[in-house]
């Protein structure tokens, strides 16, 4: 039979440990809001701005000047003139730019003689995303520029052309007209209509911070007692192993609920992230915390010293941080890696949280995530209780 007195005694003692270690306590309480702020700003916007790109206009024609004018406005770039008569392959590193655009000699003329020449762009490939972003932006600017000059050309067509067109059958004229109109996409954004990236990453940020704190804090609790010999003293009392495990988890559960509330408050008040279906979100958070604390306790029961358990915790947390889909969609990972990621509680937390908060799904849709976290909590706590016995053998 579990005794409430036993559980409360351990919980009380554990609370005193937390309160007595002031330095860690201050750190633990300050970290979640602070990190939410920092990460929040870091991931606030996914659009690139002010990417330094150098440009050299070797053509100096009307067309090149006009194109130059059109892209000068683009917020994505911060244009810098390229030193004249530089090498043909630009030295991006020493120019301190991430790309370099050269409008080749005779470009303006090539646009009208039926053989349009390409613009020449060099990008820094070491950072795979920025290069794509630059070329995409330029491609679009070039498309806009082409459309404008086509419209201008149509406006300036000689009268004979129109006369000739009059003679064409209606269908051909319509077809021609459609071909000349830009074909467009009408996009409607669901679930996150303002496309606020911050709303997407907030669960990732909160989950990540809590995952980090719960596992590292918990990982020390049993190992510390093993190291100092107090575990023996505990084992000769009337306390059952389950009472020790539950008693140890309870205060940390209380602390981490407080921490998650602080991180959510920062997200709500500072970044304006809205939270829907609070009860379901609370349930998700609760199960996630139980599961993470259980994992920390499992690591702690398994290790002999605090040093060992911290090292273990770090080795466990590393893949979790990279692969749990906290900041980038999980779907981008290869299937095998996705399967590994499915074993992390943080993955299920992020998925369930986003599904409920952004997609407003009902609880049945995320039942799988909830069951996984519940099972994780139960299995890890039971495992920890079992490992406590090891000192007896």
């Amino acid at each position, binding site marked *: 039979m579990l005794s409430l007195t036993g559980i409360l005694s351990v919980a*009380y003692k554990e609370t005193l440990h937390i309160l007595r270690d002031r330095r860690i306590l201050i750190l633990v309480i300050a970290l979640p809001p602070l990190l939410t702020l920092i990460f929040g700003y870091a991931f606030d916007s996914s659009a690139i701005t002010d990417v330094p790109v150098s440009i050299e206009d070797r053509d100096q024609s009307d067309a090149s000047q006009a194109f130059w004018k059109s892209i000068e406005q683009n917020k994505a770039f911060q244009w810098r003139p390229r030193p004249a008569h530089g090498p043909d392959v630009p030295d991006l590193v020493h120019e301190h730019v991430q790309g370099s655009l050269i409008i080749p000699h005779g470009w303006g003329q090539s646009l009208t003689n039926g053989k349009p020449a390409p613009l020449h762009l060099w990008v820094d490939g070491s950072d795979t995303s920025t290069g794509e972003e630059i070329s995409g932006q330029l491609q679009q600017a070039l498309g806009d520029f082409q459309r404008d000059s086509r419209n201008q050309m149509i406006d300036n067509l000689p009268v004979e052309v129109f006369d000739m067109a009059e003679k064409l059958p209606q269908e051909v004229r319509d077809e021609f007209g459609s071909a000349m109109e830009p074909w467009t996409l009408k996009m409607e954004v669901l679930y996150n209509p303002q496309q606020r990236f911050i709303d997407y990453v907030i669960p990732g940020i909160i989950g990540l911070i809590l995952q980090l704190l719960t596992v590292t804090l918990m990982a020390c609790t049993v190992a510390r007692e093993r190291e100092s010999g107090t575990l023996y003293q505990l084992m000769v009392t*009337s306390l059952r192993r389950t009472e020790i495990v539950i008693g140890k988890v309870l205060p940390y559960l209380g602390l981490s609920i407080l921490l998650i509330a602080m991180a959510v408050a920062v997200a709500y008040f500072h970044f304006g992230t809205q939270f829907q279906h609070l009860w379901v979100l609370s349930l998700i958070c609760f199960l996630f915390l139980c599961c993470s604390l259980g994992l920390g306790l499992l690591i702690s029961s398994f290790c002999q010293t605090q040093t060992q358990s911290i090292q273990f915790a770090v080795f466990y947390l590393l893949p979790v941080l990279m692969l749990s889909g906290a900041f980038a969609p999980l779907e981008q990972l290869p299937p095998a890696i996705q399967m590994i990621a499915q074993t992390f509680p943080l993955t299920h937390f992020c998925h369930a949280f986003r599904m409920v908060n952004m997609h407003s799904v009902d609880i049945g849709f995320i039942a799988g995530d909830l069951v996984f976290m519940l099972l994780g909590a139960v299995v890890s706590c039971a495992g920890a209780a079992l490992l406590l016995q090891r000192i007896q053998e």
Partner: protein
Amino acid sequence: MIVLEQLRKVFGETVAVDRVSMSIPAGEIFGFLGANGAGKTTTMRMLCGLTRPTDGRGLIDGRDIWRDRYAIRPKFGYVAQRFSLYPDLTVIENLKFFGGAYRVPQAGMERRIAGLLRNTDLEGKRAARAGSLSGGMKQLLAVACALIHEPMLLFLDEPTSGLDPVHRQQMWDLLYDLSSKGTTIFVTTHYMDEAERCTEVGFLDQGRLLVKNSPEGLKESFTSKLLELEAEPIMPALAALRNAPGVLGVSLRSGRARIYAGDAETLLTQWQRAWPFPEARLLGHRWVEPDMEDVFKAYSQGYHQMLGATAPEATLHA
């Protein structure tokens, strides 16, 4: 109260405790003596249900020390060799925690704690962190925590090692006080003078129980006379005597050489007739009563010629 039958513990290749059998009646102060690594702590941990016996069995109040370990736990208190309380908790918080852990009812707790603080002289340190106490006070607090549930049996693993004489005395006063109230005490030590304070003493050597008897009984089992020689210079004399024929062992006591030998009288007669060691001069001799150290040395070194047939359990493992 405590019965051990062929109790054995093997760690891998090492035999830590080798078929120990004995019984300790209720109310005794049992002193468990042995060198470091003799297996005292392992035996005590088996008794506390912290380590599973490899074979053999032990009973406390008729219940098996491993199978019924959860049922036995409330009956005893355990003070580990290392300080194992929570240094960041205060004296009173430690006591309260262990009270809760032993399921002491809230009602009697305050009175119980007040009594323990009085007996251990820790009343003035109620609010001090356990980690800030002196070594002696820490040990007394550890005993207080082990007594919070008023056990009838107390295990102490080297409770006085590293303590100053004042705190050692205080610790023993506390143990006598407990014993007079009927608590059985099982204490390990490697101080021979402490063995004299026990009602029963057991010698453990390399996992084997050599003998268990009262301190008086042990000294009486010493049938040979103990010879002490005064010689000058003493150190070369000791070295020479150690290798002399007929001498089992020599130890230095208060500047004299104490001789362990099966027939010391014959040796003395020979030496008085012709002193065979030119490196030292023989000044005189006297006969002394054996103390616990002599007894322990004789048993652990196997000086069987000195121990008569009165040694009741000396042949236990022969």
